[in-house]
């Protein structure tokens, strides 16, 4: 990718994620993330040129939240723009911040994504996005059992269900290492059989335990020009590349043929232009937007361009564990915490923290040189971001 100049991530801040944050209003919650991000970057708001703000459109029934969140975001008197691209919003915020710094318009940009899902009505909001003529009266919000059905057909019921549940339990074990995660259930593998049967069924074989949470929370990140990044941060996480791919608005509504997933298409393109021929070898950690453990499991194959049952084996052989061969979601992922407008940014932020060596108890062992982060949104929308420890040549 041709780039005017490089952009480094020098600070990541997150509020605590929870199903209920009655003690703070929206600006106060955002403020928690902003303060932590600025602290980590070692700067004050005076040094910030621009704020990029985003969340899901009208999920809290609030119009233009960027304007009245100024009290918490620090945008007073600064450049400010709002971005809302559905579930991918957080990742798109990072893209926008990257563009704003790479272009030379600004030297330091803070992006903040938030959601306070307790205050709104998520399924109502998501249903609103469906095509009013063909789908709106039929669809089930964000819940779908199609992937479970497809995997059961492909791999057999027992193997598919066990792999999906193992993925779920491994994500919870990761979340237990992340003090900010929303759901930290303390699940153990010996609960697999019980959960496969007894967790409440939602749609088809998608059960409550498989599905991501509805969380309140905010994530903020500080993006800096190369000079500022080098001066302020010992080990910034550099943008290597990112790609956005999207297609039709509703699943299969306008045709019943299986579609090429945007995830796979994005991965193929991104890897090709960054000389990644063996993603599992060349990438050290992957933060995936995994809305359910069925999708997380299935999407490993899409993102990593795997074949047949390779992705199931990765889970069955513990490869995706924090200390495994290819760690996936050391943070616990979206299944653990899902403040939607922040969720995709948390993926990029967590990937950055791994490169910066600041992921705390969830830091993966070894030197993280390359990290991948995915964002996902409605309905087939992918943002895939590649971060590196070394400053990319392309932007120098």
């Amino acid at each position, binding site marked *: 990718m041709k780039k005017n100049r490089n952009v480094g991530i020098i600070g990541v801040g997150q509020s605590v994620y929870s199903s209920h944050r009655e*003690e703070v*209003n929206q*600006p106060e919650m955002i403020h928690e993330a902003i303060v932590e991000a600025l602290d980590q970057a070692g700067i004050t708001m005076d040094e910030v040129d621009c704020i990029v703000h985003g969340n899901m459109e009208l999920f809290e029934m609030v119009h233009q939240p960027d304007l009245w969140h100024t009290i918490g975001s620090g945008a007073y008197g600064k450049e400010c723009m709002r971005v809302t691209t559905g579930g991918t919003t957080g990742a798109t915020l990072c893209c926008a911040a990257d563009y704003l710094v790479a272009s030379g318009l600004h030297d330091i940009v803070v992006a903040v994504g938030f959601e306070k899902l307790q205050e709104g*009505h998520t399924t109502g909001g998501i249903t*609103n996005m469906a095509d009013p003529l063909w789908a709106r009266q039929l669809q089930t919000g964000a819940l779908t059992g199609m992937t479970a059905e497809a995997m059961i057909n492909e791999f057999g019921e027992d193997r598919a269900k066990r792999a999906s549940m193992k993925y779920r339990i491994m994500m919870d074990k990761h979340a237990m290492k992340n003090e900010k995660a929303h759901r930290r259930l303390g699940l153990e593998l010996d609960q697999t059989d019980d959960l496969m049967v007894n967790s409440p069924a939602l749609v088809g074989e998608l059960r409550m335990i498989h599905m991501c949470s509805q969380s309140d929370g905010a994530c903020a990140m500080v993006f800096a020009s190369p000079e500022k990044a080098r001066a302020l941060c010992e080990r910034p996480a550099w943008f290597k590349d990112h790609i956005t791919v999207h297609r039709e608005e509703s699943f299969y509504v306008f045709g019943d043929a299986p579609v090429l997933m945007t995830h796979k298409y994005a991965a193929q393109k991104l890897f090709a232009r960054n000389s990644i021929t063996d993603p599992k070898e060349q990438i050290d950690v992957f933060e995936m937007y995994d809305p359910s453990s069925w999708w997380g499991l299935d999407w490993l194959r899409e993102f990593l361009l795997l074949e047949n049952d390779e992705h199931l084996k990765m889970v069955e052989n513990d490869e995706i564990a924090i200390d495994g061969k290819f760690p996936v979601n050391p943070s616990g992922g979206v299944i653990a915490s899902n403040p939607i407008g922040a969720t995709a940014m948390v993926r990029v932020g967590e990937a950055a923290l791994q490169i910066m060596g600041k992921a705390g108890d969830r830091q993966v062992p070894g030197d993280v040189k390359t990290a991948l982060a995915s964002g996902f949104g409605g309905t087939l929308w992918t943002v895939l971001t590649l971060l590196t420890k070394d400053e990319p040549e392309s932007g120098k």
Partner: protein
Amino acid sequence: MSKSSEDCHVVEGKLALPYQYFAGRTGSRFLISLRDEKKIMGIRCETCDTVFVPPRQTCERCFSDISDNWVALGNKGTVTGYTIIRYEEPHQPVKPPYILAQIKLDGADTPITHIIKGMPLSKIKTGARVKAIFAKKPTSSIRDIEYFRPSDDRPAFELGYTYDELEVGMSASFTKTISESDVYLFAGISGDFNPMHLNEEFAKLTPFGTRIAHGALPQSLIAPVLGMKLPGLGTVIPEITVRFRKPTYFGDTITATGEIIEMIEKRRWVRMELRWTNQKEELVAEGSCLAIPPMPMGK
């Protein structure tokens, strides 16, 4: 291209999305003070020397945390801007027309938005002094200040509208059901024991066929309008004329209405049109009066 909409189907839908909003730490403290102590609280930023109402956790200007710097404010303030809401929508807090104003409370540097009542719409102006009227039943919302009304920068005695506060078209009324005992008491008060009012057998022989109230009894119902409502307390009535149109029977409900029809600038009096109607909307009596509105105290 045809613009006909024949056979074009429209999908009707309605999405009702419930929501909550958490007031946050500073917002909650503000609401609790309002609800429990009827106190309006602001937060001061020492750096910017600014007192914010509504309060906020951070100063938007210098971004410092100011959430502990609470200051109590008075419940009076000055209007810094206003508008008059005249259209009607179900979501409105009160029935239009009403005044929506920006009010800078004494001791604050930023205004809050609220409703102003108790002031003729045409008399609202920037700089007007108003005071908060607290809700009788707490709602735990900003409507715990129910509304603002003109501040009593007047002395202790309550007064009606002064000449300058009155305008053509303002009206007020009073309604009362006239009972048999009202008529008997009025006979005693006035000494008018005319059998038309007191003797049913006599009254059967009159054109009315039954007893009727003294004309002055319904007429007197204009007194509470003029003396207590419009112009109100302190008013003097130098002249009143009445023409009776229909009798008032026992049990009739009479509404006396006064409306300002002329401002007599030279004398600073007003002329009012008077009307009395019964429960059948029949005109019982009509007339007019001159009214001397109350003078501002001290003059």
